[in-house]
């Protein structure tokens, strides 16, 4: 089967998924959230005020028309206006995505390459003392709660030594850099432990395979065996891991953003939840679903590139 037909087919699968997800979001909001007019107008609102607000928000229309709005928004990204700030939600999301991504994306990429490099290094030295030391360190890194990283990081790097900013954000390159270094470092430190351990296991799974022995018997260097044969075979689980993490990069890190005062999407969600800003919460839920399905598609396409055994069926 042609790769383009496969991509097209796989893209069409997105439609039923999004219909299902948006329907679920729609139903949950209606069941759980109840009538938002009480929330917005308070207890003492008159019936006519409530009627007027319902009409204004479009809540008097039949349910399928309202659902259609939600479904449509997953394609058009037109989420309407926030109840709290009255701003266009898409603009708010765009505005919030920048701080989030400038924090998470570089940290994620650095962390990913660092942990792949370290895992290759320890696989090369498997069973030797350096391997055990690294495994010990990763366990130690994992054993600290991430809150401890934030508190110690802010105390030492920010307060004691005054090296980095610990609160706030400035838009535009390169002004944002001082604000994201410390939270970025903390992100890397938190992800390094589990990632190195996971990638090391992947590499060691491959390193004892028969084809690796064959490659050695051809006269390859151990390094070439690792970088060519082992790494390419370990790619499938690595891709899965990476692609499942990417959607969360857009979300930002709730904890880091709130501790470092970064106005990212994490803060946006938190604020929306506090304000009962349903359209914004709904928009974020839809967006996450869309991003997630999109990167799943990318993942499936990458599989076919990396592993010839994946059938385009």
């Amino acid at each position, binding site marked *: 089967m042609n790769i383009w037909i496969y991509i097209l087919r796989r893209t069409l699968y997105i439609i039923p998924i999004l219909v299902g997800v948006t329907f679920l979001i729609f139903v949950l909001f209606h069941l759980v959230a109840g009538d938002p007019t009480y929330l917005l107008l308070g207890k003492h609102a008159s019936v006519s005020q409530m009627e007027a607000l319902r009409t204004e928000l479009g809540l008097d229309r039949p349910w399928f028309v309202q659902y259609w709005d939600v479904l449509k928004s997953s394609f058009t990204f037109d989420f309407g206006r926030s109840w709290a700030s009255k701003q266009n939600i898409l603009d708010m999301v765009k505005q919030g995505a920048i701080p989030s991504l400038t924090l998470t994306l570089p940290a994620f990429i650095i962390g990913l390459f660092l942990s792949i490099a370290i895992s290759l290094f320890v696989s090369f030295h498997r*069973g030797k003392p350096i391997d055990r030391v690294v495994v010990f360190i990763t366990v130690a890194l994992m054993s600290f709660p991430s809150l401890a990283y934030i508190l110690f990081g802010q105390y030492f790097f920010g307060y004691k030594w005054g090296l980095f900013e610990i609160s706030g954000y400035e838009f535009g390159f390169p002004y944002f850099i001082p604000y994201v270094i410390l939270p970025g470092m903390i992100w890397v430190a938190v992800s390094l432990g589990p990632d190195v351990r996971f990638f090391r296991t992947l590499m060691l799974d491959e390193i004892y*395979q*028969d*084809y690796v*022995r*064959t*490659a*050695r*018997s*051809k*006269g*390859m*260097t151990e390094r070439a065996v690792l970088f060519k*044969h082992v790494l*390419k*075979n370990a790619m499938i689980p690595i891709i899965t891991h990476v692609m499942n993490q990417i959607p969360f990069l857009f979300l930002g890190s709730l904890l880091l953003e709130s501790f470092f005062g970064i106005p990212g999407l994490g803060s946006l969600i938190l604020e929306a939840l506090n304000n009962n800003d349903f359209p914004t919460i709904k928009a974020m839920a839809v967006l996450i679903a869309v991003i997630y399905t999109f990167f799943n598609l990318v993942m499936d396409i990458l599989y076919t590139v*990396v*592993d*010839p*055994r994946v059938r385009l069926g």
Partner: protein
Amino acid sequence: MSEQGLEKVLEVKDLVTRFHGEGGVATAVNSVSFDVWKGKTLGIVGESGSGKSVTALSIMRLIPSPPGKIEEGQILLRGQNILDLKESEMRGIRGNKISMIFQEPMTSLNPVFTVGNQIEEVLHLHQKDLLSKADRTDKAIEMLHLVGIPSPEKRVSEYPHQLSGGMRQRVMIAMALACGPDILIADEPTTALDVTIQAQILELMNKLQDDLGMSIILITHDLGVVAETCHEVAVMYCGQIVEFADVHTLFSSPSHPYTKGLLESIPSFDSTVDKKEGRLPTIEGMVPSLFDLPPGCSFQNRCFNVSQKCRGSESPPSEKLEKNHIIRCFHPVENQGERTHP
């Protein structure tokens, strides 16, 4: 133990390979010596754990270390002790002068690279200066043709999962022979294959040996395979060669009780089958653990001919029975009459 007029390609002398595990030290290869002659096939037979594969991996210097280590002896490739070579020099020998194929053709090829790519890789490693990229592709196709793969131009760009087990073993052979090695080590090359495919692969190896003149070390537990392909045979038990002979001598007059037991357990039309039971004779008992070998002869617990001497502190030394017949046994079996080939 020489056949006159032949060139000695490989000489293994008193090889000792040990594994240092948490449970103690296992001597997987214990003072093994043999010669490999140009254009001839040496068979190494034995049960699982007898040290056949470790002997082969020692010759390749691919013993996983730690825990394994070649501790004593010499491996002379055309007179040069390869145990003295640096790892980088050894890499120049692997896949080039000495190649190896393995038991599991299904998993011995890398699933994510094409067959052609994997053959070209070995050429790239050893003949980079001689062959251009295009030459290497041509050579890969030529090798696939040589091992009897139909439409090699098409197959060269296929992946291992698109080939059957027999075809994959042919690809392995093509890869191993691409650089024209002196020695091909085949570690149970047919064990994982169908019987009909087994015969094809063995026939192919024999034919390629005639055409290319390389020596083969064939590791197997199948005496039928030995009879079909080998010129000389080493029988291994618990890390030692307990009997070494040319293939005719070994089958006609096996002198070690273990060899005799092995030969008797081959199904045949002879009277060796116990008529009353209708069962094949077996060798009683189990192979002892390498971590816990008894003093004296390691076969003592299973031997029908055992004496007090075998249980003593001395293990039986290598003794020459005839010109090319060596045995490690205090009480060699007397042979009267010829035994036919299985």
